[in-house]
């Protein structure tokens, strides 16, 4: 069977599976829709959380980012896993014991304030839409590369699938669909990783392969070889990194705290039967995530090494097929600078910006690039970082079914995260804004209908953002984490661990944290992007890491204000006492 037929088959089968699950697990009540009835097994929930959390960015982009940034890529590895320790120890069991439906629910109730609830809803919606636009774009890209359809068609197909299981099934449908998606995506990630690790090092386990010797009899370790090769070409050593220690520290912390503050992750811990299950579930989630996250740095390093060794100083006419395939997709470009027909890969940007392809072909048959050349470097190649995972099976000459599997896995990763985000948006609108703020007398049936309508509207907005991606999408990913770190996380933690924390302190803290973080990022990303470099950052902290300072400000302001204002009322103190004790988390419906 041809690779293309296999791709259609694998993607078609996985979609049929998701839709089948969605029909089987339809939501019948608001509790089903928001928290899957609260009866999800902790292992199952861990798997669903892993799929929910690992997006197109984790599956497609992360290994590529690590491949090109070496040690600096560690911020993502530690940041996106370390957050689960914070979740398990500081948030999950208490929020489960609290036992309501959404994150703004907790903040609104704990701080006895409609304002606090609305501030939380605003943070949540902003964070979630930022994220979801990227997911839908990811769906479009995977579709267009593997199914050979325009990106827009891909986005619409993705919207249709998500619509079926998020709108119909709510959290209940999404949970069980995500379990299937986790299985697809992890299998799809591990199979090529095993192959590549085996080809490069002779050890099929990527986590061990990265620390092994290259299997060419030289006795050189993979990382040593990579360091030496890159230094020869004018790059820094792979294991050294270029960011300042303080910046690496801040970005890692911002990503950790941001992960623990992301509403679509937190809400998953509302779905298990007991408070103790929420702790266990966070552990399972991290285990399932760690499988991919400990593999990614190996995939990144092997891919970089393979790339340099097969492409550098190779004649364009001898380039492997995958090279020209990705060139046709605008993600690889070569400009001939010295007329020798060989492709030189060196440090520096070959030309200004991403490639703009013109008419016709160059002397060796390459696509003409119209960008202005950069004369400071001999580098002749442009490589988009996102191709690393997708191109890996082709780079290593793996069989067609592996390529088909990776296509299905990439779609599973993007769709599962999109569905999780759609749900938190729709429940924030129908539950927090409609039921708890504007229309408290709405019936359960009416609320469920509103939740479905909100989810449908969110799908449409997400699809629109995927088809017409506004320039800011890529720019504001730091916003999602920074804002979650600077606003939601401190408010929730203080709500649990400080009985003295009151409405005035929490709202002031959230607002200050938000405004500070927002202003700093917006200044460097939009107002004056030309100054977005180490020399202009405060203490050398990049916009990606500034959420940490926002978080510290939030804590300080909240403590200061709450110490000079009236303490929280007695029933709120009793609520805090109650959520600290696991016993009596409330009955859960059986599944």
């Amino acid at each position, binding site marked *: 069977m041809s690779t293309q037929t296999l791709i259609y088959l694998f993607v078609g089968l996985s979609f049929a599976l998701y839709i089948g699950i969605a029909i089987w697990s339809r939501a019948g009540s608001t509790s089903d829709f928001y928290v899957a009835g609260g009866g999800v097994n902790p292992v199952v929930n861990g798997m669903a959380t892993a799929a929910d959390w690992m997006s197109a960015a984790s599956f497609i982009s992360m290994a590529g980012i690590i491949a090109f940034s070496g*040690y600096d890529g560690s911020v993502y590895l530690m940041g996106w896993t370390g957050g689960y*320790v914070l979740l398990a*120890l500081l948030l999950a069991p208490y929020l489960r014991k609290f036992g309501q439906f959404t994150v703004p629910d907790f903040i609104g109730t704990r701080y006895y304030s409609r304002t606090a609830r609305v501030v939380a809803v605003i943070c949540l919606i902003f964070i979630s839409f930022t994220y979801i636009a990227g997911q839908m774009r990811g769906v479009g890209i995977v579709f267009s590369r593997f199914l050979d359809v325009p990106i827009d068609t891909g986005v619409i197909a993705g919207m249709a699938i998500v619509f079926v299981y998020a709108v119909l099934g709510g959290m209940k449908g999404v949970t069980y669909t995500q379990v299937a998606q986790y299985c697809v995506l992890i299998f799809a990630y591990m199979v090529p990783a095993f192959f590549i690790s085996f080809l490069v090092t002779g050890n099929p386990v990527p986590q061990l392969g990265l620390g092994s010797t290259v299997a060419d009899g030289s006795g050189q370790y993979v990382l040593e070889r990579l360091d030496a090769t890159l230094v020869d070409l004018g790059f820094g050593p792979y294991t050294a990194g270029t960011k300042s220690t303080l910046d*690496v520290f801040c970005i*890692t912390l911002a990503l950790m705290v941001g992960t623990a503050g992301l509403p679509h992750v937190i809400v998953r811990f509302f779905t298990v039967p007991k408070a103790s299950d929420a702790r266990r579930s966070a552990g399972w989630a*991290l285990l399932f995530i760690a499988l991919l996250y400990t593999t990614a740095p190996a995939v990144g390093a092997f891919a970089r090494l393979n790339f340099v060794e097969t492409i550098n100083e190779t004649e364009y006419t001898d380039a492997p097929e995958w090279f020209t395939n990705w060139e046709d997709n605008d993600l690889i470009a070569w400009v001939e600078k010295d007329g020798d027909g060989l492709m030189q890969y060196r440090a520096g940007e070959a030309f200004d910006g991403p490639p703009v392809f013109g008419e016709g072909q160059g002397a060796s048959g390459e696509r003409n690039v119209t960008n202005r050349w950069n004369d400071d470097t001999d580098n002749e190649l442009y490589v988009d970082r996102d191709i690393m995972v997708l191109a890996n099976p082709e780079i290593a000459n793996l069989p067609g079914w592996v390529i088909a599997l990776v296509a299905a896995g990439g779609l599973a990763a993007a769709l599962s995260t999109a569905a999780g985000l759609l749900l938190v948006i729709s429940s924030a609108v129908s539950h927090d804004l409609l039921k708890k703020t504007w229309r408290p007398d709405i019936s359960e049936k009416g609320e469920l209908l509103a939740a479905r309508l909100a989810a449908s509207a969110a799908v449409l907005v997400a699809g629109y953002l995927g088809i017409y991606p506004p320039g800011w999408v890529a720019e504001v990913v730091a916003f999602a984490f920074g804002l979650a770190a600077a606003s939601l996380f401190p408010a929730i933690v203080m709500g649990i661990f400080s009985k003295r924390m009151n409405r005035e302190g929490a709202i002031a803290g959230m607002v200050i944290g938000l405004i500070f973080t927002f202003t700093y990022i917006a200044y460097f990303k939009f107002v004056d992007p030309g100054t977005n470099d180490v020399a202009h950052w405060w203490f050398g902290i990049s916009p990606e890491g500034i959420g940490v300072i926002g978080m510290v400000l939030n804590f300080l302001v909240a403590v200061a204000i709450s110490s000079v204002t009236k303490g929280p009322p007695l029933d709120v103190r009793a609520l805090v006492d109650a959520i600290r004790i696991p*016993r009596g988390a409330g009955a859960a419906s059986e599944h």
Partner: protein
Amino acid sequence: MDETEQHRERVEAEPERSGEDNAAAYWRANLRLVGILLAIWFAVSFGAGILLRDWLDRVHIGGYPLGFWFAQQGSIYVFLILIAVYVRQMRRIERRFDVDD
């Protein structure tokens, strides 16, 4: 029966304290455990993986410089162990203070 087990028996055999004290003691035990685990969390990631990286990189395990290993692999394994220990120890603490769910 060794000494620690005898001690535990005694603690478990103690008559139930008043609800208020019991909840406060449970919370203190919880905070202590969380404090210790977060200290380790900080030490392996921010300590070994970032602040002390250059120093640790002089040691190699196989092909891994040690600091680089902590940053890209080791800290993730430790995070997993931390949550596992927390789940186990909290179960014990809850039973000891009779607040388990």
